[in-house]
């Protein structure tokens, strides 16, 4: 933007290009390592997409293997489970996005309003802690709560519920654990944005006699809007990906729960772990990426229609 605003003098076009190159050289060099990594690890592997259309064998390699058309995609849509899996993936992720947004923003505002900054830090750390736990560890925490014989919940309430075969309970259990685990991370992002809001607004609001509630309603929330939109659009892009750990480890791969816990990632894992077909795995991934891409573009398009400045691109 800055460089474009200077109008180059006529007849010195070549010189100016060189001039700008020289001028931006330090920035270019600084960007280079990241760019190289991007190309190496994000763009080059894209050629592997052709595996989705191949009948892979080791001898002929990725590029030499025979073409297979769309056969690798068949198993994804083959069973009646196909729609259950798609439904679960999208509905759970939708619930996660909405709830995460609501809880994270609320929590960030509450933490920000805490008078004692030390207490705010302590709470923040506590909320953040589960984010660093692996799902395997969380699954054992859940098992110690939900186990039929020794589980804390059954013991405390004197119940004999076999939680790992109660379909109705699991949408809630999954959502609770997911929010519990990820809330700290999103909160920090919003908290960062809140801290960045200039105090001038609040001072001016105080002068005008705005209540705390009005300050939040008319200053904090509008200021967070951009952040919310970006994070949500990014989350929507991953709506077709399910957190494997959450859906596989937490329910302990319990068969009776499949109708409510089976998502695309777990289905692909179960289906392919016996025959380990790389082509079919690539097909599933391509399908997920494609749907994710379409969703991001559409939701961004929708945001543009409503408010051009808030759109991601």
């Amino acid at each position, binding site marked *: 933007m800055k460089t474009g605003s200077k109008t180059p003098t006529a007849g010195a076009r070549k010189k100016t290009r060189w001039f700008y190159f020289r001028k931006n050289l330090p920035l270019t060099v600084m960007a280079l390592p990241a760019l190289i990594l991007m190309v190496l690890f994000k763009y080059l592997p894209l050629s592997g997409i052709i595996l989705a259309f191949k*009948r892979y*064998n*080791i*001898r002929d*390699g990725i590029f030499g293997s025979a073409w297979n058309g769309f*056969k690798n995609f*068949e*198993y994804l849509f*083959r*069973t*009646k*489970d196909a729609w259950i899996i798609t439904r679960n993936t999208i509905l759970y992720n939708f619930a996660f996005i909405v709830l995460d947004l609501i809880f994270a923003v609320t929590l960030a505002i509450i933490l920000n309003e805490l008078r004692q900054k030390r207490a705010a830090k302590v709470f923040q750390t506590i909320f953040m802690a589960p984010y660093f736990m692996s799902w395997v560890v969380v699954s054992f925490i859940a*098992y110690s709560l939900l*186990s*039929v*014989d020794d589980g804390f919940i059954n013991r405390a309430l004197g119940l*004999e519920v*076999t939680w*790992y*075969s109660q379909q109705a309970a699991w949408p809630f259990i999954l959502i609770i654990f997911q929010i519990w685990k990820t809330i700290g991370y999103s909160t920090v992002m919003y908290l960062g944005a809140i801290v960045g809001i200039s105090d001038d607004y609040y001072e001016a609001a105080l002068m005008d006699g705005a209540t705390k509630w009005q300050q939040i309603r008319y200053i904090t929330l509008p200021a967070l809007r951009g952040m919310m939109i970006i994070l949500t659009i990014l989350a929507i892009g991953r709506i077709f990906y399910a957190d494997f750990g959450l859906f596989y480890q937490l329910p*302990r*791969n*319990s*068969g*009776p729960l*499949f109708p409510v816990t*089976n998502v695309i990632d777990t*289905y692909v894992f*179960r*289906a*392919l*772990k*016996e*025959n*380990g*077909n*790389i082509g*079919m795995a690539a097909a599933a991934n391509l399908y997920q990426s494609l749907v994710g891409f379409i969703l991001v573009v559409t939701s961004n398009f929708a945001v543009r229609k409503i408010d051009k400045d808030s759109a991601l691109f």
Partner: protein
Amino acid sequence: MKKRLAGMMLAAAMSVSLLAGCGGGGNDTPANSGEDGDIVTLKWYMSINPVYPDTEKVIEALNEYTREKIGVEIDYTVIANPDYKEKMPTMINSGDYFDICFTADWTTNYLQFAAKDAFLDLSELLPEYAGETYDFIPEELWKAATVDGKIYGVPSYKEMGWQSGIFVNSDMAQEYGIDLSTVKTLEDYTAVLAAVKEKSQAAGKEVIGISGLDFNLAVPYESLTGQPTLPGAYAVSDYGYFEDQDGVFNQYDTQEYMDYCTLVHDWYNNGYLSRDPVNYDSDTANRDNDFKNGNLFSYVISYAPGAAEAEVAKTGHGVEFIPLMSPLFETKNAMGGLLAVSAASEYPEKALEFINLLNTDEYVGTLIRHGIEGEHYTAVGEDRVDRTMGGTLDPADNGYDYTYGWQFGTPFNQKWDISYPENIEELFTEYNDSAITAPHIGFTLDNIPVETEIAAITSTVEEYGPALESGMVDPNEYIPKFLQALSDSGVDTLLDEVSAQLGE
């Protein structure tokens, strides 16, 4: 700068040739790789539990021996079973170099990688470079390991077949006055379970009667897909099950399946099982602990000779084995463990010579299982070892101890630990002689034409199988759902393909 680099490279080259010269001096067998005098380094990936801290020491001792004997050094990577299952296939798929790797039907799928040409066809090389092993391992086993007329791995020669049965805490049975000799089938076991429940409750304890229930272990059939949980069964007439079935059938769509599930569901309802058997079965550490402490009366296992004695040593109480069937030898049993040579290996002949040592050389066989004498075991007589070193070494503190170690190759031709019965090798012979050979031994399904169906069916079986077979859910409600889901997943296509490949 350039000069210095050249100098360094020269020095490096010289030291390499010097080292090679050293090793070559002690090489007393003619090297077959055509590189006389060179020590060949073989990269060996192994899957075994657990990974012992003294592994490096043992491999050093092994290398000392193999350098002399066959001019081979081993670059050994051992990975615990659960990780190996994930890592090795990825390494093979991504083309990482290795010479020897462990493979089976339960890890790093032998058939799949053989079909993908990841492993080398050994049929021609075997008699020449591993002649002793080739003669030592019975022909049926070779036949069963053969894929498309080619042998892609050296199978572990141990018990030939599988046999299911129940391990019972016999001390507890005696205490409760239960007569186990009447139990021949699972149905007979109902009375035992009832007695256990009644007696243990009277004693103020809550004892789980049985765990580990699995249809395929209770009602044997030949599994033509190589995976007992996948539909595609064939009746084995000696057992008297599935007599009404003709040809290849879906084992889940049988009266036997309904009867079995009904029986165990009754057990579940009567409180003979854990209240959450699926989770209970998956936590084997907890199960072993319960069995040891008398909170679990019995569990279903796949038996091998000497296993009951080992269990006695582990639990400290009496253990009786009640067989539910005679051993059955199927193609998949040859695939319980094999050592395969990579198709990309530069020294396949050397790799085979090494595998030959693992199978036939008593020093190597004992070293790789029991470790170094005086450090991990003491010798007892001519052909026994004591892993506790006369009671001074707690097995938990032993730095290297794969007592049975069949994953390294045959457990014969090595020294046995004294916890095994004196006549252990006879027990194996007896077991192998009593084994029933499945009608289609040597048949392996080429699953490429039905990959889509297998993917869908595998997922379906995992959804319904464990819950039904552990007795947790009502078969009258769930089996019809299960069958419908299987048929939606294309079970008929799979069965037709199996029949077609069988030529029936």
